[in-house]
């Protein structure tokens, strides 16, 4: 068995990945991502890649370190929603409000590399079904309690309890089992739910926990940085289950003042932060900022930008594509653009008429000429969607043959499904992350018309859309970036998971996804993803026009900031150059 110099076991997959990098069957990015998931430290992984490729490759984040200056307040314009329970967070903004107070077991940097956070390291069994997490010692909660395995077990148990209603259920489906809820569905059949399997998590000692999966999953460390997986104190529920009422974290800041819709003020804790002695490019080293202020100027990026332009804030959460030129015109503004796997899908509920007929769904999909959307909607930025929710920037992406729109076939399918004269449809759009969604629907309406499909666009306020996002038969839902395509597929398309908004359930798809998630070899996984992507596209549950680019703007005096494709904020290394 291969071991490190400290005698720790090295996953056999690391050697296989090295061989793949040598042979050229995987690229450097994929190598780095996979070996770090298998427990190799990021710096070591970069060094390994350098040795194999004969280049001097250093961790870019490590290289970007600068001294920084202590003190100052970073003011950010961002919507401030309620933040009661991190397990049920459904907006990135919610997690940003508390990201510097409560922390995650791992984190994925902007370079797509997953690094240790509250977990010091991890190991996976050869078959990727047993994951052992070694927790960092010396981490304390703000009340002085020691962070340990009990906290982690409490969080997993809570996430996977159906009563919590956490989307984490989909991510950790391999730790759950199906059960009879005792209630009946509308058709009289017994209602099934999912809950944690007995023995899915075990405590090996105070600082070691083990996850026992029912099937192999490679992305467990990445899943642990998905925004609802922040670790709360083991007494969270005993203290009311409300983070605001009991703001208890392990991070460098705590909430000093908070008002929904107005502000979230974070102040540095008055005790040493455990991460200050850590060697890590993103979360290690001295904390610079005294305070982080989030101010709510509304979701509209125009107001955020106006606040930035007049120096009321140092940074905005987002800049809309229509405001890019205006943002750049502000003296001292630095515009950050990041390629993401953020998208929006026009998704159909497969158990609701007329979408319960696959021919209708397929016909709708066949009307979509996705090639026009990046140009028309994002002025040439963005990437064409392919109706399977796996992005070209995802490491496991398999390039399927380009999707060809076919109006004649669409008409034929509609006629066969009993709609020879076409049909009337209504789509709900909430413009939940900008008016581009409505613009997409308007273009799609024109593309549907020649096939005899008349699309009525029902525009509603964003919060109202989030009320019905998983209930409406036909709606436009935005999905944030995740480092792996399989993460989104597990969250949104597996049978019976909480965020399955289409009610799609195809055991063949689930099985193909299981197989892909459990495969270490890059080429093999990519080959398996072909099936996953193909099934989802052919089952036609979504029409996916494009992948969005994301923009944010910050003052030039904000140093050390790196835009993250998920729009997650990590300000540990950020400082203000006064």
């Amino acid at each position, binding site marked *: 068995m291969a071991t490190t110099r400290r005698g720790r076991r090295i996953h056999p997959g690391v050697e296989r990945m090295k061989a793949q990098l040598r042979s050229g069957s995987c690229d450097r990015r994929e190598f780095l991502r996979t070996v770090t998931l298998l427990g190799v430290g990021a710096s070591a992984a970069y060094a390994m890649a350098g040795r194999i490729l004969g280049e001097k490759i250093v961790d870019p984040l490590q290289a970007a370190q600068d001294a920084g200056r202590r003190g100052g307040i970073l003011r950010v314009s961002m919507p401030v929603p309620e933040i009661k329970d991190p397990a049920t967070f459904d907006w990135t903004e919610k997690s940003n409000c508390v990201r510097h107070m409560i922390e995650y077991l791992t984190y994925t940097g902007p370079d797509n590399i997953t690094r240790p956070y509250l977990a010091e390291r991890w190991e996976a069994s050869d078959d990727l079904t047993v994951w052992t997490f070694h927790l960092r010692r010396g981490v304390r909660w703000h009340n002085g309690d020691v962070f340990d395995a009990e906290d982690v077990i409490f969080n997993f148990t809570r996430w996977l309890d159906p009563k919590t*209603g956490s989307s984490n259920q989909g991510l950790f489906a391999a730790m759950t089992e199906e059960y009879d809820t005792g209630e009946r569905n509308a058709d009289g059949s017994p209602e099934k739910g999912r809950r944690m399997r007995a023995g899915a998590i075990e405590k090996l000692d105070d600082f070691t926990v083990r996850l026992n999966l029912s099937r192999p999953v490679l992305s467990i460390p990445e899943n642990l940085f998905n925004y609802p997986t922040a670790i709360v104190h083991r007494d969270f529920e005993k203290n009311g289950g409300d983070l605001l009422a009991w703001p208890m974290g392990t991070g460098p800041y705590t909430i000093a003042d908070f008002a929904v*819709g107005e502000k979230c003020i974070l102040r540095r804790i008055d005790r040493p932060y455990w991460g200050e002695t850590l060697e890590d490019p993103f979360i290690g080293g001295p904390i610079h900022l005294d305070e982080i202020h989030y101010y709510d100027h509304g979701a509209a990026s125009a107001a955020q930008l106006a*606040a930035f332009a007049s120096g009321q804030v140092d940074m905005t959460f987002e800049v809309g594509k229509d405001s890019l030129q205006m943002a750049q015109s502000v003296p001292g503004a630095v515009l950050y653009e990041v390629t993401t796997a953020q998208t929006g899908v026009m998704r159909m509920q497969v158990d609701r008429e007329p979408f319960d007929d696959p021919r209708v769904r397929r016909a709708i999909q066949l009307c979509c000429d996705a090639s026009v959307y990046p140009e028309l909607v994002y002025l040439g930025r963005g990437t064409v969607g392919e109706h399977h929710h796996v992005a070209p920037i995802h490491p496991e992406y398999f390039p399927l043959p380009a999707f060809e729109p076919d109006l004649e076939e669409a008409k034929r399918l509609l006629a066969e499904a009993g709609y020879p004269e076409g049909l009337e449809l209504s789509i709900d759009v909430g413009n939940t992350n900008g008016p581009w969604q409505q613009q997409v629907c308007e273009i799609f309406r024109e593309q549907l018309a020649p096939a005899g499909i008349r699309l009525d666009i029902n525009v509603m306020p964003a919060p109202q859309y989030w009320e019905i996002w998983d209930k409406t038969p036909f709606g436009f839902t935005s999905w944030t970036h995740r480092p792996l395509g399989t993460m989104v597929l597990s969250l949104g398309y597996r049978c019976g998971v909480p965020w399955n908004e289409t009610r799609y359930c195809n055991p063949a798809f689930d099985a193909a996804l299981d197989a892909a998630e459990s495969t270490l070899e890059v080429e093999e996984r990519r080959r398996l993803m072909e099936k996953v992507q193909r099934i989802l596209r052919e089952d036609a549950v979504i029409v996916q026009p494009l992948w969005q680019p994301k923009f944010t703007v910050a003052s030039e005096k904000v140093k050390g900031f790196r835009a993250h494709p998920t729009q997650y904020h990590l300000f540990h290394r950020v400082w203000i150059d006064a």
Partner: protein
Amino acid sequence: MLRLAARRFGAMILIMAVVSFILFLIFETDKLAVAGKVLGPYSSLEQRELWLEREGYNRPFLVRYGEWVTDALRGDFGESIRFKAPVADLLWPRLANSAILAGLVFLLMIPLSLLLGVLAGMREGSLLDRGLSFLSILTTSVPEFASAAFLVALFVFELRWLPGTSAMTGGFDWSQLVLPVAVLVLYDFGYVARMTRASMAEVMTSHYIRTAILKGLPRHRVVLRHALRNALIAPFTVIVLQLNWLLSGVIVVEVFFAYKGFGALLYDAAMFGDIYLIEACTMVAVFVAVFSQFVSDVGYTLLNPRIRFAGSTVR
């Protein structure tokens, strides 16, 4: 007069009672939906039913309505679902913020529009009159969101003179009120000025003014002592009714500038389906609407000696 006031007051109470009942009927008939709103979309049926029982929702509708009215009269509107705070704690500071905005708008708009309206009305057809008509039609016909965007582009992005939002995040700051007040004054002054101008022009052509002029009274005395009082009756009504607009009609401006006023609160409540907050905001808005109507009616009667009512007329 007192009878008129009492009658108008009675009508005001009746309107509020009817609106409150309709409001309660719309929002609180579907008890499970209320529980779903409060407990969140992932709450189970069992959790919702337990909550309904605990909160007394299983009592008859009219009993619940009666209790809601009693609580509302005491200023207790329940807890906001979105803001997780008592509605009353949110309502009063937001009303105060809107009152500051409205007060400043009134302070600038009333003297400006009355002065311009009177001057234009005094000389109908003059250059000033035509100029004012053109300007007021222009400013009134430009919607607030357009003038707000224009002023922000000019004063925030181009000249960099003024703050772009009015959230008062660092404490109260007068400079943050400049743009929202400017937008509202621009939008509204033309309307009041035109009403004043029309009223003044009408008065200036009346017989008693002509008599006063022919009597040889100086023009300024004619205007100030004889024309102005009558000419201001119509604008008075219009101005009082603007109070209602400045409370709940300025949503666009408050949202645009992120000003934490009553309009923005109403907008948030509606967007998030915050039932208790919508109920409270609606009742406040209705109260201000009917109360300003009441003040307008009574005030108009007091100011205008030609209006007398059957009961008090001496034949």
